[in-house]
């Protein structure tokens, strides 16, 4: 069957049940693609062909015998290499943990294993989800499938690049300052940062425990919903593309005055707003707390907590970290306890201000990155990638937010937008995303890769 690699998890689940595809055929096909493409994309740090194939055979047999574990049974996915998978390397893309092997599954992997999903391997990240993209690490950085000279965003770089390249339909990522939504936007796929604490962080190497979130990246909205359901409490997430009457707050000031997005990004956001209005949503302009304020408070908390985690190792073995990690992590050594506590209090205040917005509107529409993905050799562009964006507010407040593609730049690189909602209303975000997916062709566009 042609194009197995572009099939969504939901499509694979249907194909398994109609016997038009088997998990074995799908895993074999994706492994073949991985061996062909990974030397160019570097999405995988470790391909677990042996266990993936064994799991596929087991799933095929169980499904044939009517032992159906549900829609994720036999569905392959990739795992960011800061999340434990029992028996597999858990390096955090770092020399520090180069020989580390996970002794157990992270809670989220355990849940997905119970649902029958199949781990394909471990995926590239920035070192400890902060230091990258970097070329002074034991493993190369992932590359953007739309143009391999360009950065795929981070820190869940392999997750975004692998989903975009058709190496697996879904991947797990983590998001502390935007690390699911950044690669999702840069690679033209979708990434959902759920409500804080909705998905367990047990077995996930922390960067900043107040801000860390675990979530899925995928090419289709239905897949995000299926994985979120299994990763969280197992309760079905009801989504509908009917958004008539839904109140959408358009946060223009983030990309027009707080920061300045590229004209094409601004235009893509305006078009998205018009699309939603055309679908019957009530689109109005709203204001959030200043983007720079949110980012500043986020940075104080992130750097303080990250230093608490890494300080003891970094003092002993600074040479084992890449330069980008050293420079970013040591910032926390110079932040005082007073500043950290004040930042935590401010986060509470800012969170209440964002909560209040959701009395006026159901979801927010806003920019993701202000610029498309830059080239690896563009140092200023790389720095801009981690400064010029609108992702940090929702790490600070814990509100769910997702990124999805809404345009292409003149260089043929994806442009993303964000949709955010009140806490625990991922169903609203996914419904709006589904409406957009159905009304546009962006989610059907893929990078042109050699086979």
């Amino acid at each position, binding site marked *: 069957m042609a194009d197995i690699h572009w099939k969504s998890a939901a499509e694979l689940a249907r194909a398994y049940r109609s016997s038009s595809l088997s998990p074995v055929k799908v895993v074999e096909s994706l492994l073949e693609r991985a061996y062909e493409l990974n030397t160019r994309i570097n999405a995988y740090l470790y391909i677990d062909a042996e266990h993936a194939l064994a799991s596929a055979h087991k799933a095929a047999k169980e499904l044939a015998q009517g032992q159906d574990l549900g829609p994720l049974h036999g569905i392959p996915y990739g795992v960011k290499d800061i999340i434990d998978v029992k028996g597999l390397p858990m390096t955090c893309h770092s020399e520090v943990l180069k020989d580390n092997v996970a002794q157990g599954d992270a809670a989220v992997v355990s849940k997905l294993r119970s649902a029958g999903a199949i781990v394909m391997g471990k995926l590239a990240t920035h070192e400890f989800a902060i230091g990258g993209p970097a070329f002074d690490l034991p493993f190369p950085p992932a590359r953007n499938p739309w143009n391999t000279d360009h950065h795929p965003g981070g820190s869940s770089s392999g997750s975004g690049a692998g989903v975009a390249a058709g190496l697996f339909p879904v991947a797990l990522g983590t998001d502390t300052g935007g690390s699911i939504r950044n690669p999702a936007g840069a690679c033209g796929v979708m990434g959902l940062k759920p409500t804080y604490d909705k998905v367990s962080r047990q077995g996930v190497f922390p960067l900043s425990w107040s801000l860390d979130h675990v979530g899925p990246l995928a090419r289709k909205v239905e897949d995000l919903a299926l994985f979120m359901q299994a990763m969280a409490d197992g309760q079905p997430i009801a989504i509908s593309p009917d958004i008539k009457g839904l109140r959408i707050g358009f946060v223009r000031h983030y990309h027009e005055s707080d920061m300045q997005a590229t004209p094409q990004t601004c235009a893509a956001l305006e078009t998205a707003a018009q699309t939603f209005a055309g679908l019957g949503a009530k689109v109005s302009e709203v204001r959030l707390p200043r983007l*720079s*304020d949110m980012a*500043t*408070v986020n*940075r*104080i908390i992130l*750097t303080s907590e990250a230093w608490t985690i890494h*300080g003891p190792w*970094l*003092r002993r073995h*600074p*040479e084992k970290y890449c*330069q980008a990690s*050293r*420079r*970013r*992590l*040591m*910032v*926390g*050594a*110079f*932040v*005082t306890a*007073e*500043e950290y506590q*004040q*930042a935590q*209090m*401010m986060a*509470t*205040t800012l969170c*209440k201000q964002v909560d209040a917005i959701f009395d006026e509107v159901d979801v927010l529409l806003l920019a993701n990155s202000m610029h498309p993905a830059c080239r690896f050799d563009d140092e200023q562009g790389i720095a801009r990638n981690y400064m010029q964006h609108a992702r940090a507010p929702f790490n600070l407040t814990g509100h769910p937010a997702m990124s999805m593609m809404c345009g292409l730049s003149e260089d043929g690189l994806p442009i993303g937008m964000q949709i955010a909602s009140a806490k625990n209303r991922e169903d609203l975000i996914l419904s709006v995303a589904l409406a957009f997916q159905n009304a546009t062709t962006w989610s059907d566009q893929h990078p042109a890769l050699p086979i």
Partner: protein
Amino acid sequence: MQAVQGSMFDALVIRAGLGETCEKFPEDVKAAFELAMKSCESFSNLAVGMQVPGGSTYPAEQVSHG
């Protein structure tokens, strides 16, 4: 002013236990310090006057970055 900043840098490096790291990677420690000072300055400016959960306001003297 430069001398004051230099002694502040030395003191904070020692307090953070980064003396040896600074010998091996002086440019990285300096870059982190400068970024931290910039971040803390932005933070202090933000903290002044911002309402806190109890409804009180941060007095300026409580937001120095030591």
